[in-house]
């Protein structure tokens, strides 16, 4: 029992009386409240997989559509499978989306095993119940005539949207761009800031105090206060030209006063004896840094690695400004432009969003502790 830290409510109050009742109410509200963050994501995933005519309904269950047979091209075909042309209430293109025919409304004929298909046209006796619905031509098993109506139910998980988004966004290319920027930025973040922090901690050179103070001062200057002159600087240096302008993204990000101060705080806490022992053993400064300081600094490296990756993946405005060529855009910039084109379907945009949030969610679930530590530190230092 002693292991649980005492908080506002005592054990007795948790269990008995008005306070217990209130406590349970608050807990209930808190758990219910998580729907406010979880449901939107569920909604996104659900909606991302819906067919266009179903998109307006609830994302987690399908809305049946009414359809009407408008033509029977081969009316003389008396076999069990007949090709018919149908029309649905919503005229959107359904190519590739999957529907299930559920029942016939207008005529008396039972068509329980009716199938809808396009590819199936070549093989009328297929038994598949779920087939792709190409345009508005169906293959129906049973007797149908012009004017017959029935209900079709869109299938819930239209993986088709993901494929459309994947191709439309050119996901492979743009997430690869993001990964390259992440890797380059990460390497520089660690190298530049850890080395400088170590120097400021253990290799005090003349002027180190001034340098440390100058670094600290940059924390006081909001990025938005300098992004216009920064933009001029990177364009004048020509960084926006080679490699789609990636250097203009990576280089200004490399020096990061927050990371540097985190590193320095950690290196400052290392015992002097340890550093001296390594030096007496004849290790060079780089070796001491690499063999002694870095392995001990693993926790802080963890925080910074996760933060750096997350920040670069999520970053939008700066790459949007400095990357001139569409092929070089990281995913976030591409997503924004993909939406702006106005040609993409609503579901494919949502599918792209759902895919784009997977890496940060994965990072978050894997490295919760590091992320929590980083955000707590940023509040305390800030």
């Amino acid at each position, binding site marked *: 029992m002693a292991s649980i830290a005492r908080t*506002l409510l005592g054990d007795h109050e948790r269990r008995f009386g008005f306070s217990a009742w209130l406590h349970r109410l608050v807990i209930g509200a808190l758990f219910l409240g998580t729907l406010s963050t979880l449901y939107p994501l569920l909604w996104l995933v659900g909606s991302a997989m819906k067919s266009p005519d179903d998109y307006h309904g609830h994302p987690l269950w399908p809305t049946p559509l009414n359809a009407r047979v408008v033509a029977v091209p081969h009316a003389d075909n008396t076999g069990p499978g007949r090709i018919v042309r149908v029309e649905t209430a919503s005229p959107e293109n359904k190519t590739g989306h999957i529907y299930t025919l559920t029942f016939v409304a207008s005529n008396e004929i039972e068509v329980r095993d009716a199938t809808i298909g396009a590819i199936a046209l070549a093989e009328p006796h297929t038994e598949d119940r779920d087939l792709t619905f190409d345009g508005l031509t169906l293959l129906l098993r049973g007797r149908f005539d012009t004017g017959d109506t029935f209900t079709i139910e869109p299938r819930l998980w239209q993986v088709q949207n993901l494929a459309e988004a994947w191709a439309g966004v050119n996901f492979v290319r743009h997430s690869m761009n993001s990964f390259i920027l992440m890797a380059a930025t990460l390497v520089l973040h660690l190298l530049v800031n850890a080395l400088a922090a170590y120097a400021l901690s253990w290799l005090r050179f003349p002027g*180190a105090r001034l340098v440390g103070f100058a*670094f600290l001062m940059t924390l006081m*200057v909001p990025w938005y206060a300098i992004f216009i002159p*920064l933009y001029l600087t990177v364009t004048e240096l020509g960084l926006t030209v080679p490699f789609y302008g990636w250097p203009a993204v990576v280089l200004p990000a490399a*020096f990061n006063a927050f990371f540097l101060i985190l590193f320095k705080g950690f290196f400052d806490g290392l015992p002097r004896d340890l550093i001296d022992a390594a030096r007496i053993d004849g290790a060079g400064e780089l070796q001491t840094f690499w063999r002694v300081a870095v392995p001990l600094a693993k926790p802080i490296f963890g925080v910074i690695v996760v933060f750096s990756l997350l920040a670069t993946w999520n970053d*939008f405005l700066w790459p949007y400004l400095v990357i001139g060529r569409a092929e070089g855009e990281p995913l976030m910039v591409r997503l924004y432009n993909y939406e702006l084109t106005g040609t993409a379907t609503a579901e494919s945009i949502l599918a792209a969003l759902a895919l784009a949030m997977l890496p940060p969610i994965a990072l978050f679930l894997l490295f919760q502790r590091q992320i929590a530590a980083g955000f707590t530190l940023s509040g305390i230092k800030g």
Partner: protein
Amino acid sequence: VPSKSTAIHRRQRTGLLFAAPAIALFLVFAAWPIARSFILGFQEYRVVGDSDWAGIDNFASVVGDPFFARAWWNTAYFAFLALLLGFPVPIALAITINEVRRGQAFLRLAYFLPVVLPIVVVALLWERFYDVDDGIFNVAINGIGLGGILDRLGETSLAAVDPRGWINDKNWAMPSLVFMATWKGAGATMLIYLAALQSLSGELYEAAEIDGASVFQRLRRITLPHLVPTMQIILVLQLLGTLQVFLEPFLMTRGGPGDTQPTLTVLLLIYRYAFNDWNLSWAAAVGFILFLALVTVALIQRLLSRQLGGAGSAF
């Protein structure tokens, strides 16, 4: 064996070498742009050729722009709403979640989740939520039968109460952005308060309980005073952050809807001057004014917190 002084000398040289990349990058991408941000607003910037000295012409021009006052007003309005919602919510979340024994990890996780999502994804997603026909808010409002009441209100002078236009309604666009920003950001602030609560010794509660203090008395006299230093920092950070509101209106409303530009913020104005009009001097002039405002806020906080000293007793 090298003498001690040469060893120290070599160590200093190595230190300078280690710090050199950071110093170089700092000079080019931090110090120089900062210095330039002070100069640029006073120049007539030209892409080709030398820039002329412009004195305070740029400042006079931007202040004379009717959108300038509009942008400041909107930014202040955003900051006000964002604090109204975004300041108490994380505190309440942290205090209540801290009381939960079973499932606390899940609650932290769930409330924090939006923080790690990219703003582009969140903005494009919430655009759908705010959709007038299919958005989840309107579906919910109409679903529980509030739609009819709001429809009837729409015919009276209380028409502005109807939120169902969301980001497409000039009155509701800004609150909608605030709502989204709070949803996205509250989890991070909550975590900071939770960390602060963790450092509060349980013995204080124990002693107060023995003295007969009720739960609410303990909340008022122990929990909240303990959080006051954190609250002061967070308040300033949030104020500084909200004055720099940019991505939400940029991604979702572009300053609109309509000609009155109800969501045009200061940074959005800077962006327009710079990248729509390519008038970098005007942009820098507004940026300079914004920078002064941010510094002023930070300084006022410094002065106040020094004056208040042990503000904890205020509770």
